[in-house]
């Protein structure tokens, strides 16, 4: 789960890290007054969960209350990468001496938490990693012993040039680590972490992502979710316990298992069709999940045909078949439905569907050809 920059700043603040003072607005009315209160020169930032806000014009520096109000009005009218801007963060402008990068993530390859720090902050870390990887300093955390404090101090010393600034950076990284571990984060990033003219280190922009699998432990974090960032379908699917991603095409897909669901979309494209969505009904098969899945897909007016591709393992074909029957009775299915059903309890599942007049395909490619042909 991702959260907005202003939410991340407030979390960092709770963990003892200095951030830039600012206020959130959803309309331009109070913008001028807030701008004045923050000292006149401020940064107006669109709060949307996509990269490239700056390039899209969603981040602007303003120098007077009037300019601030105008910038807020204009940014609130923007749509960035398909997401309408609903909130704007007005932050005090900071006098920048140098920009640094600080980050903590999970290194999937080493299977360890990793600290990353660089004196070349302010740019995308992925870009830096490709162009100048030697400028990113890294330190793994021993999962059974915890972070190596001497190693972390040494890294801070190298990146921040020693002295009190390095000690401050070490403290910030320790706070970030505490946040990372306590709240099951998948990323805690301060970029840029700015050295000001006054010699302080301040988190000017930050990103905090969380492990969805651990949200059950952290109701406070789960409450930070920004539902407006998802399509209506995605929210409905999430509430029904389905894994769903909207796409642009016209073939609705219901599949069990993420790998097979992706492969189904790939084969649809390969054979000339366009998938309308990714949908994984998940493992254990509550028949009602098929009903919810069909409801969500049918609510998309673009959908002209639907493919159900089930390979039962932990999911049982008879449960899926019963779900399809419930859906047939409760929904008005007006588009062609192609079903492929195989695996655990397939005989029972196929029997249920055949008796109800459905044709069940055996092979995936055959089923995909059929649904692409039906559009």
């Amino acid at each position: 789960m991702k959260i907005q920059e202003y939410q991340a700043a407030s979390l960092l603040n709770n963990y003892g890290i200095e951030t830039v003072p600012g206020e959130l607005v959803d309309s331009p009315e109070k913008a001028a007054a807030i701008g004045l209160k923050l000292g006149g020169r401020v940064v107006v930032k669109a709060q949307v969960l996509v990269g490239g806000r700056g390039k899209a014009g969603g981040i602007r520096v303003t120098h007077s209350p009037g300019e601030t109000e105008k910038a807020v009005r204009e940014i609130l009218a923007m749509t960035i990468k398909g997401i309408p801007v609903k909130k704007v963060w007005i932050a005090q402008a900071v006098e920048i001496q140098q920009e640094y990068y600080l980050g903590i993530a999970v290194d999937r390859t080493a299977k360890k938490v990793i600290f990353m720090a660089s004196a070349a902050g302010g740019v995308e870390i992925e870009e830096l990693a490709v162009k100048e990887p030697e400028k990113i300093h890294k330190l793994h955390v021993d999962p059974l012993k915890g972070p190596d404090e001497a190693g972390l101090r040494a890294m801070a010393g190298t990146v921040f040039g020693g002295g009190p600034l390095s000690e401050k950076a070490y403290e910030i990284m320790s706070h970030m680590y505490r946040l990372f571990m306590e709240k099951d984060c998948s990323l805690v990033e301060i970029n840029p972490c700015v050295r000001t003219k006054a010699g302080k280190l301040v988190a000017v922009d930050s990103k905090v992502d969380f492990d969805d699998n651990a949200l059950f432990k952290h109701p406070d974090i789960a409450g930070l979710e920004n539902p407006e960032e998802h399509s209506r379908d995605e929210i409905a699917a999430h509430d029904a316990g389905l894994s769903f991603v909207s796409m642009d095409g016209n073939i609705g897909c219901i599949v069990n298992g993420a790998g097979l669901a992706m492969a189904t979309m790939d084969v649809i494209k390969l054979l000339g069709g366009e998938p309308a969505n990714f949908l994984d009904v998940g493992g254990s098969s509550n028949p009602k999940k098929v009903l919810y899945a069909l409801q969500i897909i049918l609510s998309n007016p673009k959908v002209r045909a639907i493919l159900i591709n089930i390979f039962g393992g932990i999911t049982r074909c008879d449960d899926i078949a019963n779900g399809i029957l419930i859906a047939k009775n409760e929904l008005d299915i007006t588009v062609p439905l192609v079903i492929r059903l195989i695996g655990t309890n397939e005989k029972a599942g196929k029997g249920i569907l055949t008796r109800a007049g459905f044709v069940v395909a055996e092979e995936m490619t055959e089923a995909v050809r059929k649904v692409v042909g039906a559009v």
Partner: protein
Amino acid sequence: MSILVNENTKVLIQGITGRDGSFHALSMLDYGTKVVGGVTPGKGGQKVGTLPVFNTAREALKEVEANCSVIYVPAKFASAAIREAADCGIALILCITEGVPVLEMVENYHYIKSKGLRLIGANCPGVISPGKSKVGIMPAHIHTPGNIGVISRSGTLTYEVVYNLTRRKMGQSTCVGIGGDAVVGTGFVDLLALFEKDPGTDAIALIGEIGGEEEELTAEYIRAHVKKPVVAFISGRSAPPGKRMGHAGAIISGGKGTAEAKIKAFRSAGVQVADRPDEIPKLLQGVLKQ
């Protein structure tokens, strides 16, 4: 021959009384797997079919002998179950459970490694050596004994590939689902090393997906260390960046983990990559003839 599990594998089932645990306990028994019993805290003394249920793994091991454990407990309790099996010294631990937090998996991975044991998963379908032993949730009837090793990050997509192999009369030595999470107990490289040494395996089908760098690193390993032919399929070519595609590990972020990069890495290591899952048998037949 086979890897990981065979006719001598004696399986304990953690979470045996749940809907899935009990169903798959009986289906493993049906297949001929040597299931020795199960564990559910508070339900010791009950039975699932003919199988005895114990309160803890330690209690179970006083009564029965096991060298493998398969875990079906809910995500909240999965790490405790993994640790419990490890503390009993069970050599091979498979975790089927989906949704285990990644920081717990980081700890579990290193804990198991420090004890010299092996973990498969979490969020995986398990392991089957057709005709010998099935430990997991895969539909047994689509498998047939043979000389192809199968390894995959996805459960149902593994079934898809196995189904196509069996239809083309290409049997399998062992099929392993490594799990779809960002951090799993055993990766492609470990398994390729086992298959390379296994005299019962002549070629390997590898099924990867978007996210992470596992496939790229595996391609490098194959180039340097694997003499047996490998063919691959990568799912997620049509996946949009920045969206988690079901699996916790399946996400393209910061331009990394794309299907294109993985396909390119495999091809440059001499691994043929199928466009569709049902093309894998044909590619395997080709490389086996050479």
